[in-house]
């Protein structure tokens, strides 16, 4: 088992534990209640807090694009990562396993894709890319030709390419996620009251 595959399995396991933990905690909070936790006042507050935390993730891409000449906003990237994990977990707590209406279900799926692709990008793809570049550099230092190095790195390169898909998913799906979130919030306020 390579380093990248092991990292992938660890990340997948941690994500599973976090999501199952949040769903179980919601089930605990819903026990002995007429309405599920998400439909109570506390559940609504959890949803709003989750959304507020999620909104922090947008500071990083905005800062990165607004002024390209400035140094990379490392601090905001860390906020991006933390908010991108904590916010969705709060939303899982808000929703629990009570899925019926299609709009919030689609919003949850979109959120899951965005969050997972981000986690894969940072925790797995980055490692795959770094491993590929380091091994290529070592081959070149040993006097191996460029073509020969590329041939030897074929497996590592194809794995890196597979994990690179996250880039095609992460940012574009965010647009769809935000549209669905706005629809869900408007729907909840329209039918449930302000």
């Amino acid at each position: 088992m390579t380093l990248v595959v092991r990292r992938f399995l660890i990340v997948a396991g941690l994500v599973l534990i976090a999501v199952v933990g949040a769903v179980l905690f919601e089930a605990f909070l819903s026990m002995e209640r007429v309405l599920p936790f998400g439909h109570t006042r506390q559940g609504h507050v959890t949803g709003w807090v989750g959304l507020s935390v999620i909104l922090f993730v947008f500071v990083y891409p905005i800062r990165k694009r607004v002024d390209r000449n400035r140094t990379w906003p490392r601090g905001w990237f860390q906020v991006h990562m933390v908010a991108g994990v904590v916010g969705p977990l709060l939303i899982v707590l808000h929703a629990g396993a009570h899925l019926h209406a299609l709009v919030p279900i689609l919003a949850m799926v979109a959120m899951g894709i965005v969050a997972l692709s981000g986690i894969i990008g940072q925790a797995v793809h980055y490692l795959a890319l770094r491993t590929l570049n380091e091994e290529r550099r070592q081959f070149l230092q040993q006097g191996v030709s460029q073509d020969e190095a590329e041939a030897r790195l074929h497996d590592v390169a194809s794995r890196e390419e597979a994990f690179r898909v996250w880039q095609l998913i992460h940012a574009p799906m965010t647009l769809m996620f935000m549209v669905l979130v706005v629809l869900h919030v408007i729907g909840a306020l329209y039918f449930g009251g302000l």
Partner: protein
Amino acid sequence: MRFLPLPRTAVPVVAVATGVLLAWLGWGSIRHPEALWAPGDLSRYHADVARCVHCHEPFQGPSPAKCLACHSEKRFAVRSKPAVRDFHREVIAQQKTCLACHTEHRGALAQITTNAMFNPHGEFIFRATGTSSCSACHEFGADVVARPTLLDNDFVRHLFDEGEGAHHRGRMANCVQCHVSGQ
């Protein structure tokens, strides 16, 4: 060690996909609003309700006025037991919220009365006092779920007097404990 930039086609493709999604959701909201927006299926009691706005006031939620459009005082008078009829008459008169006791979207087989008030005295109490409503002897809070307080009125005083000491606070709940044969 830099990530590659997104292809130029990514943004228009996602914009088109989002537009298609919105159009589909708009169409679905007209054809199947419950599937898209409701947190659960309606109960069998309200299965014939066709449109969300029959019960929901936009941006105000389910309102007592919407409930009363079907569940009027007149309907309670015709179709309900006296205790239920009189209780709801007072709820309507005091403009209390129906949501304190009733809920919906919990599934076709679910009960919609969630905080139903249990009458510990049974129907016997109405025969004994000559009343037909719980509120003849009890004061209920705004949400009607909280434990009611006992009023100090003629009905209550008469009941206490009738008991010749056996009727007192804290010993009145279960009438048939002593009135075994209902006498």
